[in-house]
Structure formats: structure tokens, C-alpha cells
């Protein structure tokens, strides 16, 4: 009997708690609704989804009346949604294609406008004991491309200490990743990867694996470096001096494997969307870009 009673009161209490919680949640959203809430729909690149979410969260304290809804799916998905007019801002870690601009014009009568909100530099990682410091784009392509000519470190004149088999272990990303596509386009020139690479599911996993494998080479975002890996300098052509992936070299576009992170809108942004984009380009918004592991645009670039 006593137990039953106890259970009953417990149940009642938890019901009450749940309903209170639910009410509180509803109440909060109703409040912002009452204050004339505006929702900005934001969709696109998976590379940018983390930084876009961080922007949306921080912006809530800047302007509580604006609610930014962020979702991923890929750059193409975001731009397609923009063309349909389903969203306000599309995130894209590539440039919009000419036919996409044309399609948007036909569909909505407005021109898509791109705003660069930051940069992503893809760094080439090797194990920290690997003596190599510099690699050319051509060598990099020959390592990763299908039927490439470089399979052993000795072909690059490199001897890795304490390693008998110096076969290069290639660390790549799963084929749906934006970084994979970017690397394929920029480094391999659209050719296919050689099979047999270890295809990791995340940027961090690539760096972690390379950090534990002396003969490995992998590519991942610049922000993921750890003490166990080394980032290589990259020469556009053999013989040229290599360029290290830094904020500086990304901004002045001397680092070859970098891309801009773009926001696309239809027509000149107005009202809340305009304010939001202005805030993203401000110091506060750019700080979030840096925290998320990407390269912020400099003030100079903004006026360009």
C-alpha cells in the first residue's frame, strides 16, 4: 500500500514537472513570437554547418527577436533550396555555378548574390616524425590520384625513422564529404582517388589517425592540427617555394588549397537578413569563424 502511494505521488510529481517544463518551453517561444519574431531559414554546406549554428546561437543574444534556423545537407542542397525560394540564406563552401544563377533568375526573378564570410584552408598532415616539410601540388596529386605514380616515401626522397615498410598510407574522407570533393577538384583536377585509402568519417579522425601512423598522409581542415601531426608547406609548382597554411597565406590566396565559405542570398539582402549578414561580417561574427577552426575574412577584404 505504502509503496503504491509513493509511486502515485512520484508519478504525479513527475507529470507536474514535465508539464511545467513543456509550458516553460512553449511560453518562451510565445514570448518571442509576441515580440514580433522573425525566422531566418539558413541551409547548406556541411562544412559550414557548425559555424553557422554557432552564429545562430550567438545572434540570439544580439537580437532575440530574430530566430535563425540552420540545417546542413551540402552546398548543392542549400543552393537548390535558395533557387526554390524556400530559404533566406544558403551556405556554400563552393562558388555558385552559372546554370544555378540562371535557374534562380528564371524561378524567382532575382539574382543570387554571394558574400564571403570566411575561408577554409585544407591542410596536408603527416606524422610529426616524418622529415618531409614541403610537397608540390603535383606530388600530392600523384600520391592520391587513381593509378598515381608515387606509392612510397622513398620516391619523395624521404626516409622515415624506425619504419621498415615505407609504403604511403593515404588517409582520405568518405565520398560524401565536402572536403573530399574540394580536394578532388582542387588537387586531383576532378580525377578519381586511388582506391585503398582509409576513408574517415570526420575531419578530426583524419588528423588523429595520421598522428598515430608514421607513414600516413592525410588532408583535413586547418583548424584540426594537434601536437602529433605536422602540416606541410605546399608548392603550386615543383621548384617553387612552399607555402604554409596560415591565416595570412589563406587571405592573400597564396596557399593553394583554400576555399571561401560563402553565404548566398536572392537579391540585395534586406531587413533582418541584411542585419544578420552584417553581424556575421563584424568582428563578433568573425571571431566565431576563428573559434570554429576557419580563417576569418580581414577587414581589408571586406571593403574589397
Amino acid at each position, binding site marked *: 500500500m505504502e509503496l503504491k502511494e509513493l509511486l502515485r505521488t512520484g508519478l504525479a510529481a513527475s507529470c507536474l514537472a514535465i508539464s511545467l517544463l513543456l509550458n516553460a518551453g512553449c511560453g518562451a517561444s510565445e514570448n518571442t513570437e509576441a515580440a514580433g519574431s522573425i525566422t531566418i531559414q539558413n541551409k547548406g554546406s556541411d562544412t559550414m554547418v557548425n559555424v553557422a549554428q554557432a552564429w545562430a546561437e550567438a545572434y540570439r543574444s544580439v537580437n532575440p527577436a530574430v530566430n535563425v534556423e540552420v540545417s546542413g545537407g551540402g552546398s548543392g542542397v542549400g543552393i537548390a533550396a535558395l533557387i526554390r525560394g524556400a530559404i533566406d540564406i544558403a551556405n556554400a563552401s563552393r562558388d555558385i555555378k552559372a546554370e544555378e544563377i540562371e535557374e534562380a533568375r528564371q524561378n524567382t526573378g532575382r539574382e543570387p548574390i554571394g558574400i564571403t564570410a570566411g575561408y577554409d584552408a585544407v591542410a596536408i598532415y603527416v606524422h610529426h616524425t616524418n622529415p618531409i616539410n614541403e610537397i608540390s601540388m603535383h606530388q600530392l596529386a600523384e600520391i592520391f590520384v587513381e593509378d598515381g605514380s608515387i606509392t612510397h616515401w622513398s620516391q619523395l626522397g624521404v626516409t622515415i625513422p624506425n619504419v621498415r615498410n615505407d609504403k604511403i598510407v593515404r588517409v582520405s574522407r568518405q565520398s*560524401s564529404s565536402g572536403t573530399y570533393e574540394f580536394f578532388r577538384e582542387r588537387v586531383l583536377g576532378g580525377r578519381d582517388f586511388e582506391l585503398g*585509402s582509409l576513408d574517415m568519417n570526420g575531419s578530426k579522425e583524419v588528423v588523429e589517425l595520421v598522428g598515430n601512423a608514421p607513414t600516413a598522409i592525410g588532408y583535413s581542415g586547418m583548424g584540426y592540427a594537434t601536437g602529433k601531426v605536422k602540416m606541410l608547406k605546399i608548392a603550386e609548382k615543383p621548384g617553387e617555394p612552399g607555402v604554409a597554411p596560415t591565416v595570412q597565406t589563406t587571405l592573400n590566396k597564396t596557399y593553394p588549397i583554400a576555399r571561401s565559405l560563402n553565404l548566398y542570398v536572392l537579391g540585395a539582402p534586406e531587413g533582418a537578413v541584411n542585419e544578420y549578414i552584417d553581424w556575421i561580417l563584424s568582428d563578433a561574427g568573425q571571431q566565431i569563424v576563428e573559434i570554429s577552426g576557419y580563417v576569418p575574412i580581414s577587414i581589408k577584404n571586406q571593403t574589397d
Partner: protein
Amino acid sequence: MKSVDTSRYRSKTKQTEAALSRGETSTAGIHPSATERSRRTSLGRVRPQRPRWAVIGEHILETVIRISGISAILFVLAIFLFVFREAFPVLGSEEFSLVEFFTSIEWYPTSIKNVRYGVLALIAGTFSVTVLAMVFAVPLGLGGAIFISEFCGPKLRETLKIVIELLAAIPSVVWGFIGLTVMSRIIVQYTDAPVGVNMFNGSIILALMAVPIIVSIGEDALKAVPDSYREAGQALGATKWQLIYRVLLPAARNGLLAAVLLGVGRAVGETMAVLMATGHAVNIPHGILDSIRTLTANIAAELGEAPVGSEHYRVLFLTGVLLFTITFLVNLTADLVIRGVRRK
């Protein structure tokens, strides 16, 4: 009796009919159903009336149980139909060739210039890691089953069984995590392997996952061997080893085979752990320290990003059909083998 049955209670379930035709005494183990009750009263036998809600409730309960029994068949059929329906259109596509699918190792589902769907390397990966896992798991599992069934005392047996069940309850992502962090470091330290995530790592993880299944089913099979066999063996002066090797293992052969096959089924179907531990490289392995990719891990990694209805999506479903067929065959074999045991 029969005439009453057919004229008035046509809707009666077969079980009840069967029970009734066997006569009153044989229905002792079966709850009297509503129809039975009314029939009995109509025959003039005094029996307390059950309230109406109990009668209806029992009917509902019976229906629910019947549905849940049949639902398993419906679900399996529905899943197979769904997977096949999603995969089917690609078979008619011009760019897709079923021969290439089975014989090519080239898996380039998102290539810009030349899309190729060859799953031979993935099939090789799945089979090699499963076989190696069984090399570790079968001796360990059968040894465990023999120990629990023949050697250890009742107290230790209970403890072991609980611990082994716990082992079976560890989520596969946790196993994958162990493979990715702990195992891979050990492998790099003690072998020549350039990376720790490879076929060896994956197969050890799979073996650890399959062992609990092999132990518990194998132990059941050994326990099913009548004690008279053991007594006869001992009476003939057989040592414990002779008894196990010459008498118990042959007697429990089918059950032990079924245990192994179910372990194989587990290993073939496992996804998360192999995705994390095998290195996920499209590669036909030349040694046990090579990284591989399995059919399951490939689906898990790529299906989420393949546009619905695209060729890539359909080919992934086709590999699903392939997997379904493999596990179905393994399980069917295990089932037939177990049936073989029962018939004895």
C-alpha cells in the same frame, strides 16, 4: 458433439476445436474459451459464469498475441520488399551492370568522370574479416561452452553465464571505440602494421562480439546431450578428454554448428564496430594487417549522403539486398541444423 460445433460455433479457433475433440480431460492445460464455456452450460454441466469483460478481454488478448506472432513474418517480408523495391530500378539502368557489380573492385559512386559500382572488394572485406573473426571466436566460444557445461561448478557457472550475457549486451559502438583507441595502439606497438585500424583489429572485435552467442548456444547444445552418454563413457573408463572429444562433441555436433553459424551471422551483419575498427579502405586484403571495408560499413557511411532515388542510393540498397541474402542463408542453415538436432 461435432454437429453442435459446426452448426453454432463456426468462428471457433482451431485450437479450441482440437482441444474439444480430444475430450474434456485433455483440455486441462488450456484456458476454457467463451464458446467452450457456453457449450458446456448448454450441455447442462454446471460451471460458474465468467463475467463478460473477461470473455471479451480474452478474445482481444488472443487476437493481439496472434497478430504479434504473425507480425514477424510480415515485417521480414515488408523489409525485404522495401529494400528490393528501392534497389530494383537500378537493375534496368543502362549505366549499371550486374556483372561489374559482382566482379569489379572499383567502387567510385561519386566520381565526376566515370562512376563505377563494383563491390567485389567489399565482399572480400566482409568475408575475410568474418573468417578471421571465426578463427578466433570458434575455439574460444566452444572452449567456453565446454568449460561451462562440463567442468565448472554450479556457482562459477552462474557467475560466468551472467558475465557472458553482459558481454553480449555491450553496444557495438562501444566495441568499435575500443578497437579504434585501445586495440589500434596495441597493434601498432607490437606488429609491423602501418596503421592500427585493419582487418586484424576488426576481426578481434567481431570475435569478442560473437563469442557470447557461441558460448550460450553451444552450452545449451552440450547440456542437451543426455547424462546417460556421460555415465556410459565414464563407466567404460574414458578420461574427461576422451569423453568430450569422442562422445559429447559428436553428440552435440549439430547444436555446436548452429552456434558457430549464428556467430557468423552476427559477424557478417555487424556494422558500427567494423566501420570504426577496420580502417574503411576499399581494398582486397593481402595480409591480416591490411585495412578493409565491409558491405555493412559502406552502407552506413554512404547512405546518409546519397540523394534519395539516385543511382548511388539504389546501388547501396542493392548491397543491402546482397547482405540480406547472405545473412538469410547463414541463418537458414543454422536453423536447418538446429532442426536436425531436434529430430534426433
